[in-house]
């Protein structure tokens, strides 16, 4: 089965745009991420090996945004950005939590950051994250515990 990529873009691009907006905090940044993710797929279509295109777009968007947040050239701009106004939002994640998450995931190890994103932003349960990350539920618990410790230490410093 073969899919035309512009059709995939039209039918599934909203997923990338929403998640990137949540993670990066601005529509302009999210639109850049949207293009980067799809251009990456156009350049290397073999990245998608079948199955759920939604799953592929979730992980590609997560990795793209985490890399963007970690990039020293972007970090200051992205972390200082305010969250979008309520009328522009379609998710229930608290704005202050999004800001905290963005600051945290920029400096956490990949696995911890991903687990936090899946749990807090995507509202996945432990089992879903374990399935998604191919690890045990216990390991998910450890990753989230490390993330919680980071959040608490950050609150203590603040």
């Amino acid at each position, binding site marked *: 089965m073969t899919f035309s990529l512009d059709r995939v873009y039209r039918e599934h691009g*909203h997923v990338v745009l*929403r998640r990137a907006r949540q993670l990066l905090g601005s529509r302009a940044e999210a639109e850049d991420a949207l*293009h980067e993710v*799809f251009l990456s797929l156009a*350049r290397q279509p073999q990245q998608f090996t079948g199955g759920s295109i939604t799953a592929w777009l979730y992980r590609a968007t997560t*990795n793209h945004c985490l890399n963007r947040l970690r990039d020293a050239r972007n970090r200051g701009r992205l972390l200082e950005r305010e969250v979008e106004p309520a009328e522009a939002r379609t*998710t229930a994640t608290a704005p202050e939590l999004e800001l905290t998450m963005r600051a945290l995931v920029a400096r956490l190890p990949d*696995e911890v950051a991903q687990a936090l994103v899946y749990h807090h932003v995507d509202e996945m349960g432990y089992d879903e994250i374990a399935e998604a990350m191919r690890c045990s539920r216990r*390991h998910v618990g450890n990753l989230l515990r490390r993330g919680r410790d980071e959040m608490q230490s950050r609150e203590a410093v603040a």
Partner: protein
Amino acid sequence: MIDEDARNDCLSSFRLDQLLADELASSAARHARDHLATCSRCSARFAAFDAERQAFAAAPPAPVPSALTSARVTPRARRPWAWLAVPAALAAGAALWIARPRPTDELEGVRTKGGGHLELFVEHASAMRAGGPGEVVAPGDRLQFAYSSARAGFLTIASVDGAGAVSVYHEESPVAPGEHVTLGESVRLDGTLGDETIYALFCARSIDAAPVVARLRAQPHASPDVDGCEVETLTIVKREAR
């Protein structure tokens, strides 16, 4: 702030998106729709996602990139795990590895912007297996690394063990674009137990590893950010062998 899996009853954004995309198996879709019928919060989220989808399809926020108009995606056929155990080859020091295909529903590990991806293999008691996040290993196991990268660059692999000791598992070497490229050396694990974090730095230019090591010693649990590098993190768990 993190509830103990308090959201099991509600549908994650991921499940809602899969439902919208008609990607769920019939039983899972039925379960999701049953939940939507009784949960005002999830049904509101689902409606909002659907509205977003329709608005995007009708008028994408930016023109469809021209590179996409002629591009096509042909999923590769799914194969069973294809990595093979070759203890004899390992014993001879040969580097013969056939990497497994990555599961399609895996939400980790794909790099964008042409970055690299680290692959881990573990030799335990003369048997080899592909490793992943949370891999349980034992003292004396041997780790072998491979990478896939869409572009040329430089790769360094460092590790912080359960006692906070930092090791460089792979001194910087140039990497060429390719899939499942095996690194020449392997690592024999010592007796320090606990979580060990492995950092793979895929860099556009050559870097000095010394500041990276110093940073890891100072902040063992923080990703060693280096300008121009993408860092992939993999945590393994070292326990006494049973």
